[in-house]
Protein backbone atom coordinates (compact mmCIF):
# COMPACT_ATOMS: atom_id res chain seq x y z
CA UNK A 1 0.00 0.00 0.00
CA UNK A 2 0.92 3.61 -0.45
CA UNK A 3 3.80 2.59 -2.54
CA UNK A 4 4.62 3.91 -5.91
CA UNK A 5 4.89 1.55 -8.85
CA UNK A 6 8.22 0.00 -9.44
CA UNK A 7 9.85 -0.76 -12.72
CA UNK A 8 8.98 -3.95 -14.44
CA UNK A 9 11.86 -6.27 -13.69
CA UNK A 10 13.54 -7.46 -16.84
CA UNK A 11 13.27 -11.14 -16.17
CA UNK A 12 14.92 -12.36 -19.31
CA UNK A 13 17.81 -10.37 -20.69
CA UNK A 14 17.33 -9.23 -24.25
CA UNK A 15 19.95 -9.60 -26.93
CA UNK A 16 23.33 -8.21 -26.13
CA UNK A 17 24.04 -4.81 -27.45
CA UNK A 18 27.29 -4.21 -29.26
CA UNK A 19 28.99 -1.58 -27.14
CA UNK A 20 31.24 -2.72 -24.32
CA UNK A 21 29.40 -0.72 -21.71
CA UNK A 22 26.04 -2.09 -22.59
CA UNK A 23 27.54 -5.56 -22.77
CA UNK A 24 28.82 -5.05 -19.25
CA UNK A 25 25.41 -3.98 -18.03
CA UNK A 26 23.76 -7.02 -19.59
CA UNK A 27 26.30 -9.40 -18.12
CA UNK A 28 26.00 -7.97 -14.65
CA UNK A 29 22.28 -8.60 -14.82
CA UNK A 30 22.76 -12.31 -14.41
CA UNK A 31 22.37 -12.45 -10.72
CA UNK A 32 23.42 -16.06 -10.48
CA UNK A 33 24.61 -18.90 -12.67
CA UNK A 34 21.06 -20.21 -13.14
CA UNK A 35 20.01 -16.89 -14.69
CA UNK A 36 22.90 -17.05 -17.13
CA UNK A 37 22.08 -20.64 -18.06
CA UNK A 38 18.40 -19.86 -18.63
CA UNK A 39 19.43 -16.95 -20.83
CA UNK A 40 21.75 -19.15 -22.89
CA UNK A 41 19.13 -21.87 -23.31
CA UNK A 42 16.66 -19.30 -24.56
CA UNK A 43 19.20 -17.62 -26.81
CA UNK A 44 20.26 -20.91 -28.37
CA UNK A 45 16.61 -21.88 -28.75
CA UNK A 46 17.16 -25.30 -27.27
CA UNK A 47 14.85 -27.36 -25.09
CA UNK A 48 15.38 -27.12 -21.36
CA UNK A 49 14.54 -30.85 -21.19
CA UNK A 50 17.28 -31.78 -23.67
CA UNK A 51 20.13 -29.35 -23.17
CA UNK A 52 23.02 -29.75 -25.64
CA UNK A 53 25.44 -29.71 -22.76
CA UNK A 54 28.68 -29.34 -24.75
CA UNK A 55 27.41 -26.29 -26.63
CA UNK A 56 25.88 -24.64 -23.58
CA UNK A 57 28.98 -25.31 -21.47
CA UNK A 58 31.15 -23.69 -24.12
CA UNK A 59 28.86 -20.65 -24.24
CA UNK A 60 28.73 -20.46 -20.49
CA UNK A 61 32.51 -20.47 -20.16
CA UNK A 62 32.77 -17.84 -22.88
CA UNK A 63 30.47 -15.55 -20.92
CA UNK A 64 32.45 -16.16 -17.78
CA UNK A 65 35.62 -15.14 -19.59
CA UNK A 66 33.90 -12.04 -20.95
CA UNK A 67 32.79 -11.14 -17.44
CA UNK A 68 36.34 -11.49 -16.17
CA UNK A 69 37.76 -9.47 -19.07
CA UNK A 70 35.25 -6.72 -18.50
CA UNK A 71 36.20 -6.71 -14.86
CA UNK A 72 32.83 -7.79 -13.59
CA UNK A 73 33.46 -9.63 -10.37
CA UNK A 74 32.59 -13.27 -11.02
CA UNK A 75 31.07 -14.70 -7.89
CA UNK A 76 32.12 -18.12 -6.68
CA UNK A 77 28.71 -19.54 -7.57
CA UNK A 78 29.44 -19.01 -11.26
CA UNK A 79 32.63 -21.02 -10.98
CA UNK A 80 30.89 -23.82 -9.10
CA UNK A 81 28.35 -24.03 -11.91
CA UNK A 82 31.15 -24.10 -14.49
CA UNK A 83 32.61 -27.10 -12.69
CA UNK A 84 29.20 -28.76 -12.58
CA UNK A 85 28.69 -28.24 -16.31
CA UNK A 86 32.08 -29.70 -17.14
CA UNK A 87 31.37 -32.65 -14.87
CA UNK A 88 28.05 -33.31 -16.60
CA UNK A 89 29.71 -32.98 -19.99
CA UNK A 90 32.30 -35.64 -19.09
CA UNK A 91 29.64 -37.96 -17.76
CA UNK A 92 27.70 -37.64 -20.99
CA UNK A 93 30.80 -38.77 -22.88
CA UNK A 94 31.32 -41.87 -20.75
CA UNK A 95 30.19 -45.10 -22.42
CA UNK A 96 27.02 -46.47 -20.89
CA UNK A 97 27.19 -49.72 -18.99
CA UNK A 98 25.48 -52.10 -21.44
CA UNK A 99 24.20 -54.26 -18.55
CA UNK A 100 22.14 -51.45 -17.01
CA UNK A 101 18.55 -51.58 -18.23
CA UNK A 102 17.52 -48.55 -20.30
CA UNK A 103 15.01 -47.17 -17.79
CA UNK A 104 17.51 -47.22 -14.96
CA UNK A 105 20.05 -45.08 -16.76
CA UNK A 106 19.97 -41.69 -15.17
CA UNK A 107 20.54 -38.67 -17.35
CA UNK A 108 23.48 -36.76 -15.85
CA UNK A 109 21.61 -33.54 -16.71
CA UNK A 110 18.45 -34.33 -14.77
CA UNK A 111 19.41 -32.63 -11.51
CA UNK A 112 20.44 -29.46 -13.32
CA UNK A 113 17.24 -29.47 -15.37
CA UNK A 114 15.21 -29.79 -12.20
CA UNK A 115 17.09 -26.89 -10.64
CA UNK A 116 16.58 -24.73 -13.73
CA UNK A 117 12.87 -25.50 -13.84
CA UNK A 118 12.49 -24.65 -10.17
CA UNK A 119 14.42 -21.44 -10.61
CA UNK A 120 12.29 -20.48 -13.56
CA UNK A 121 9.10 -21.07 -11.63
CA UNK A 122 10.24 -18.75 -8.88
CA UNK A 123 11.21 -16.12 -11.42
CA UNK A 124 7.69 -16.36 -12.80
CA UNK A 125 6.25 -16.07 -9.33
CA UNK A 126 8.49 -13.07 -8.58
CA UNK A 127 7.12 -11.41 -11.69
CA UNK A 128 3.53 -11.95 -10.57
CA UNK A 129 4.37 -10.66 -7.09
CA UNK A 130 5.85 -7.57 -8.68
CA UNK A 131 2.69 -6.94 -10.68
CA UNK A 132 0.55 -7.46 -7.62
CA UNK A 133 2.66 -4.99 -5.63
CA UNK A 134 2.19 -2.42 -8.39
CA UNK A 135 -1.57 -2.91 -8.31
CA UNK A 136 -1.59 -2.67 -4.56
CA UNK A 137 0.57 0.44 -4.60
CA UNK A 138 -2.24 2.15 -6.50
CA UNK A 139 -4.60 1.82 -3.56
CA UNK A 140 -4.53 4.01 -0.50
CA UNK A 141 -5.98 3.83 2.97
CA UNK A 142 -7.12 6.34 5.49
CA UNK A 143 -4.21 8.18 7.08
CA UNK A 144 -3.34 6.72 10.46
CA UNK A 145 -3.04 8.95 13.47
CA UNK A 146 0.63 9.21 14.24
CA UNK A 147 1.88 9.88 17.72
CA UNK A 148 4.41 12.58 17.01
CA UNK A 149 5.35 13.25 20.60
CA UNK A 150 6.73 9.81 21.04
CA UNK A 151 8.47 8.66 17.89
CA UNK A 152 8.18 4.97 18.34
CA UNK A 153 9.48 1.87 16.72
CA UNK A 154 7.50 -1.25 16.00
CA UNK A 155 9.89 -4.05 16.67
CA UNK A 156 10.56 -7.20 14.79
CA UNK A 157 12.27 -10.19 16.33
CA UNK A 158 15.60 -9.33 14.76
CA UNK A 159 15.34 -5.74 15.90
CA UNK A 160 14.87 -7.05 19.40
CA UNK A 161 18.17 -8.88 19.09
CA UNK A 162 19.83 -5.93 17.39
CA UNK A 163 18.77 -3.66 20.24
CA UNK A 164 20.04 -6.19 22.77
CA UNK A 165 23.37 -6.34 20.97
CA UNK A 166 23.60 -2.55 20.93
CA UNK A 167 22.95 -2.37 24.66
CA UNK A 168 25.62 -5.01 25.33
CA UNK A 169 28.12 -3.29 23.01
CA UNK A 170 27.48 0.01 24.75
CA UNK A 171 28.01 -1.65 28.11
CA UNK A 172 31.24 -3.23 26.92
CA UNK A 173 32.50 0.18 25.79
CA UNK A 174 31.71 1.64 29.22
CA UNK A 175 33.46 -1.26 30.97
CA UNK A 176 36.54 -0.72 28.82
CA UNK A 177 36.62 2.94 29.80
CA UNK A 178 36.35 1.92 33.46
CA UNK A 179 39.21 -0.53 33.13
CA UNK A 180 41.28 2.14 31.41
CA UNK A 181 40.54 4.49 34.28
CA UNK A 182 41.59 1.83 36.82
CA UNK A 183 44.89 1.34 35.04
CA UNK A 184 45.58 5.03 35.42
CA UNK A 185 44.74 4.76 39.07
CA UNK A 186 47.41 2.09 39.45
CA UNK A 187 50.08 4.49 38.16
CA UNK A 188 48.53 7.25 40.24
CA UNK A 189 48.55 5.05 43.32
CA UNK A 190 52.27 4.32 42.94
CA UNK A 191 52.97 8.02 42.49
CA UNK A 192 50.81 8.75 45.53
CA UNK A 193 52.73 6.33 47.78
CA UNK A 194 56.02 7.67 46.46
CA UNK A 195 55.06 11.24 47.27
CA UNK A 196 53.95 10.18 50.77
CA UNK A 197 57.43 8.71 51.27
CA UNK A 198 58.92 12.08 50.35
CA UNK A 199 57.40 13.64 53.46
CA UNK A 200 57.68 10.75 55.92
CA UNK A 201 60.32 8.04 56.18
CA UNK A 202 57.87 5.24 56.74
CA UNK A 203 54.15 4.56 56.28
CA UNK A 204 51.89 2.06 57.94
CA UNK A 205 50.50 -0.37 55.39
CA UNK A 206 47.41 -0.86 57.53
CA UNK A 207 46.62 2.86 57.46
CA UNK A 208 46.94 2.81 53.69
CA UNK A 209 44.50 -0.09 53.40
CA UNK A 210 42.11 1.48 55.86
CA UNK A 211 41.86 4.59 53.75
CA UNK A 212 40.98 2.56 50.65
CA UNK A 213 37.51 3.39 49.34
CA UNK A 214 36.81 0.03 47.75
CA UNK A 215 37.93 -3.53 47.51
CA UNK A 216 39.34 -2.70 44.12
CA UNK A 217 41.43 0.12 45.59
CA UNK A 218 42.77 -2.22 48.27
CA UNK A 219 43.91 -4.63 45.59
CA UNK A 220 45.42 -1.67 43.77
CA UNK A 221 47.34 -0.54 46.87
CA UNK A 222 48.57 -4.07 47.43
CA UNK A 223 49.76 -4.34 43.81
CA UNK A 224 51.37 -0.89 43.99
CA UNK A 225 53.35 -1.84 47.10
CA UNK A 226 54.54 -5.04 45.42
CA UNK A 227 55.55 -3.00 42.38
CA UNK A 228 57.52 -0.57 44.55
CA UNK A 229 59.27 -3.44 46.32
CA UNK A 230 60.14 -4.96 42.96
CA UNK A 231 61.52 -1.64 41.73
CA UNK A 232 63.66 -1.50 44.91
CA UNK A 233 62.03 1.79 45.86
CA UNK A 234 60.79 0.54 49.26
CA UNK A 235 61.46 -2.19 51.75
CA UNK A 236 58.84 -3.80 53.97
CA UNK A 237 59.41 -4.56 57.61
CA UNK A 238 57.22 -6.26 60.15
CA UNK A 239 58.09 -6.08 63.82
CA UNK A 240 55.68 -8.80 65.03
CA UNK A 241 54.24 -11.82 63.32
CA UNK A 242 50.76 -10.33 63.07
CA UNK A 243 51.88 -6.74 63.45
CA UNK A 244 51.59 -3.86 61.06
CA UNK A 245 53.79 -3.81 57.99
CA UNK A 246 55.85 -0.69 57.65
CA UNK A 247 56.73 0.64 54.25
CA UNK A 248 60.06 2.44 54.34
CA UNK A 249 61.92 4.20 51.60
CA UNK A 250 65.00 2.26 50.54
CA UNK A 251 68.17 4.30 50.75
CA UNK A 252 69.91 4.71 47.44
CA UNK A 253 73.12 2.75 47.61
Amino acid sequence: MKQAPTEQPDLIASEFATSDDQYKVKLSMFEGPLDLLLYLIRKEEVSIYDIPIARITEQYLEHLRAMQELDIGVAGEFLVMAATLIHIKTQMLLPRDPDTPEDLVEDPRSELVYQLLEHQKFKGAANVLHQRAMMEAATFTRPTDSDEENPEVAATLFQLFEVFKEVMDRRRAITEIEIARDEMTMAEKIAQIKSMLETSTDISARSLFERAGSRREMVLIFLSILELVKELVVRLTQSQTFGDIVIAKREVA
Partner: protein
Amino acid sequence: MTIDELKPIVESLIYVSEEPISVKQLAGLLEGESPADIQTATDQLMEEFNARGGGLELRQLAGGYRITTRPEFSEYVRRYLKSQPSARLSLAALETLAVIAYKQPITIPEILEIRGVTSTSAIKTLLDRRLIVAKGHKQVVGRPMLYGTSKDFLIHFGLNDLSELPNLEDFEDLMSS
Protein backbone atom coordinates in the same frame (compact mmCIF):
# COMPACT_ATOMS: atom_id res chain seq x y z
CA MET B 1 -28.75 -7.44 16.97
CA THR B 2 -30.06 -8.00 13.47
CA ILE B 3 -27.74 -8.30 10.49
CA ASP B 4 -28.88 -4.87 9.32
CA GLU B 5 -28.03 -3.37 12.68
CA LEU B 6 -24.62 -4.99 12.64
CA LYS B 7 -23.61 -3.74 9.21
CA PRO B 8 -23.06 -0.03 10.00
CA ILE B 9 -21.18 -0.93 13.18
CA VAL B 10 -18.92 -3.28 11.27
CA GLU B 11 -18.41 -0.57 8.67
CA SER B 12 -17.29 1.99 11.23
CA LEU B 13 -14.95 -0.50 12.86
CA ILE B 14 -13.36 -1.40 9.53
CA TYR B 15 -12.96 2.30 8.87
CA VAL B 16 -11.17 3.12 12.13
CA SER B 17 -8.97 0.03 12.18
CA GLU B 18 -5.38 0.74 11.21
CA GLU B 19 -4.84 -2.81 10.06
CA PRO B 20 -7.24 -5.08 8.20
CA ILE B 21 -9.70 -6.23 10.88
CA SER B 22 -10.83 -9.85 11.03
CA VAL B 23 -14.25 -11.30 11.86
CA LYS B 24 -12.68 -12.72 15.00
CA GLN B 25 -11.51 -9.27 16.10
CA LEU B 26 -14.93 -7.86 15.27
CA ALA B 27 -16.56 -10.57 17.35
CA GLY B 28 -14.31 -9.65 20.25
CA LEU B 29 -15.58 -6.08 20.09
CA LEU B 30 -19.23 -7.02 19.58
CA GLU B 31 -19.83 -9.11 22.66
CA GLY B 32 -22.89 -11.31 22.49
CA GLU B 33 -23.01 -11.37 18.69
CA SER B 34 -22.26 -14.65 16.96
CA PRO B 35 -19.28 -14.78 14.62
CA ALA B 36 -21.59 -16.32 12.01
CA ASP B 37 -23.87 -13.26 12.11
CA ILE B 38 -20.89 -10.95 11.95
CA GLN B 39 -19.60 -12.86 8.95
CA THR B 40 -22.95 -12.55 7.21
CA ALA B 41 -23.15 -8.84 8.02
CA THR B 42 -19.61 -8.30 6.72
CA ASP B 43 -20.27 -10.23 3.50
CA GLN B 44 -23.44 -8.25 2.83
CA LEU B 45 -21.76 -4.99 3.72
CA MET B 46 -18.90 -5.68 1.33
CA GLU B 47 -21.30 -6.46 -1.49
CA GLU B 48 -23.35 -3.33 -0.90
CA PHE B 49 -20.38 -1.10 -0.31
CA ASN B 50 -18.75 -2.12 -3.56
CA ALA B 51 -22.00 -2.08 -5.56
CA ARG B 52 -22.03 1.71 -5.14
CA GLY B 53 -19.13 2.03 -7.54
CA GLY B 54 -17.72 4.96 -5.59
CA GLY B 55 -14.11 5.89 -5.17
CA LEU B 56 -13.67 3.43 -2.33
CA GLU B 57 -13.59 -0.31 -2.10
CA LEU B 58 -14.08 -2.66 0.84
CA ARG B 59 -11.62 -5.52 0.42
CA GLN B 60 -10.49 -8.72 2.05
CA LEU B 61 -6.84 -8.43 2.90
CA ALA B 62 -4.46 -10.43 5.11
CA GLY B 63 -7.33 -12.30 6.72
CA GLY B 64 -9.28 -9.13 7.50
CA TYR B 65 -11.28 -6.32 5.94
CA ARG B 66 -10.08 -2.91 4.88
CA ILE B 67 -11.35 0.09 2.94
CA THR B 68 -9.00 1.37 0.25
CA THR B 69 -9.29 3.75 -2.68
CA ARG B 70 -9.81 2.16 -6.08
CA PRO B 71 -6.62 1.81 -8.11
CA GLU B 72 -8.07 3.74 -11.07
CA PHE B 73 -7.96 6.97 -9.06
CA SER B 74 -4.40 6.53 -7.86
CA GLU B 75 -3.08 9.32 -10.07
CA TYR B 76 -5.15 11.96 -8.26
CA VAL B 77 -4.48 10.52 -4.83
CA ARG B 78 -0.74 10.48 -5.48
CA ARG B 79 -0.83 14.03 -6.71
CA TYR B 80 -2.63 15.08 -3.58
CA LEU B 81 -0.53 13.15 -1.08
CA LYS B 82 2.66 13.93 -2.99
CA SER B 83 3.44 10.39 -1.96
CA GLN B 84 7.04 9.41 -2.18
CA PRO B 85 7.59 6.12 -3.90
CA SER B 86 9.07 3.77 -1.35
CA ALA B 87 12.26 2.04 -2.37
CA ARG B 88 11.50 -0.64 -4.91
CA LEU B 89 12.38 -4.23 -4.24
CA SER B 90 15.27 -5.45 -6.32
CA LEU B 91 14.80 -8.42 -8.61
CA ALA B 92 17.02 -10.45 -6.27
CA ALA B 93 14.84 -9.52 -3.29
CA LEU B 94 11.64 -10.35 -5.21
CA GLU B 95 12.95 -13.74 -6.28
CA THR B 96 14.15 -14.52 -2.78
CA LEU B 97 10.76 -13.46 -1.45
CA ALA B 98 9.04 -15.76 -3.95
CA VAL B 99 11.15 -18.70 -2.79
CA ILE B 100 10.35 -17.91 0.86
CA ALA B 101 6.63 -17.43 0.13
CA TYR B 102 6.27 -20.82 -1.53
CA LYS B 103 8.70 -22.86 0.56
CA GLN B 104 8.18 -21.43 4.03
CA PRO B 105 9.43 -21.98 6.61
CA ILE B 106 12.85 -22.10 4.97
CA THR B 107 16.47 -21.54 6.04
CA ILE B 108 19.14 -19.44 4.32
CA PRO B 109 21.12 -22.50 3.13
CA GLU B 110 17.94 -23.95 1.60
CA ILE B 111 17.28 -20.69 -0.24
CA LEU B 112 20.85 -20.74 -1.53
CA GLU B 113 20.32 -24.23 -2.84
CA ILE B 114 17.22 -23.23 -4.80
CA ARG B 115 18.45 -19.90 -6.10
CA GLY B 116 22.04 -20.89 -6.76
CA VAL B 117 23.25 -17.63 -5.19
CA THR B 118 23.58 -16.39 -1.65
CA SER B 119 20.64 -14.24 -0.66
CA THR B 120 21.66 -12.77 2.68
CA SER B 121 21.48 -9.14 1.66
CA ALA B 122 18.10 -9.74 0.03
CA ILE B 123 16.91 -11.43 3.24
CA LYS B 124 18.12 -8.51 5.30
CA THR B 125 16.17 -6.12 3.06
CA LEU B 126 13.05 -8.26 3.34
CA LEU B 127 13.37 -8.35 7.14
CA ASP B 128 13.85 -4.59 7.30
CA ARG B 129 10.79 -4.12 5.11
CA ARG B 130 8.91 -6.53 7.40
CA LEU B 131 7.86 -8.67 4.46
CA ILE B 132 9.37 -11.74 6.11
CA VAL B 133 9.84 -12.76 9.73
CA ALA B 134 12.00 -15.23 11.60
CA LYS B 135 10.02 -18.35 12.50
CA GLY B 136 12.29 -20.04 15.01
CA HIS B 137 15.21 -22.39 14.56
CA LYS B 138 15.22 -25.53 12.47
CA GLN B 139 16.03 -28.58 14.57
CA VAL B 140 19.02 -29.70 12.54
CA VAL B 141 22.77 -29.35 13.06
CA GLY B 142 23.66 -25.67 13.50
CA ARG B 143 20.02 -24.83 14.26
CA PRO B 144 19.67 -22.34 11.37
CA MET B 145 16.92 -19.71 11.52
CA LEU B 146 13.73 -20.39 9.60
CA TYR B 147 12.02 -17.61 7.66
CA GLY B 148 8.45 -17.11 6.48
CA THR B 149 6.26 -14.35 5.12
CA SER B 150 4.53 -11.82 7.38
CA LYS B 151 1.14 -10.16 7.55
CA ASP B 152 2.73 -7.13 5.89
CA PHE B 153 3.65 -9.41 2.98
CA LEU B 154 -0.03 -10.20 2.44
CA ILE B 155 -0.96 -6.52 2.64
CA HIS B 156 1.86 -5.40 0.37
CA PHE B 157 0.87 -7.86 -2.34
CA GLY B 158 -2.87 -7.53 -1.84
CA LEU B 159 -3.42 -11.11 -0.70
CA ASN B 160 -6.02 -12.34 1.75
CA ASP B 161 -4.00 -15.43 2.62
CA LEU B 162 -1.19 -17.55 1.22
CA SER B 163 -3.58 -19.77 -0.70
CA GLU B 164 -4.13 -16.82 -3.03
CA LEU B 165 -0.58 -17.03 -4.29
CA PRO B 166 -0.56 -18.12 -7.93
CA ASN B 167 0.06 -21.81 -8.49
CA LEU B 168 3.77 -22.34 -8.92
CA GLU B 169 3.23 -25.08 -11.50
CA ASP B 170 1.65 -22.48 -13.78
CA PHE B 171 5.10 -21.07 -14.40
CA GLU B 172 6.57 -24.39 -15.41
CA ASP B 173 6.13 -24.09 -19.15
CA LEU B 174 7.25 -20.54 -19.45
CA MET B 175 10.23 -21.58 -21.51
CA SER B 176 9.05 -24.54 -23.51
CA SER B 177 7.06 -22.21 -25.73
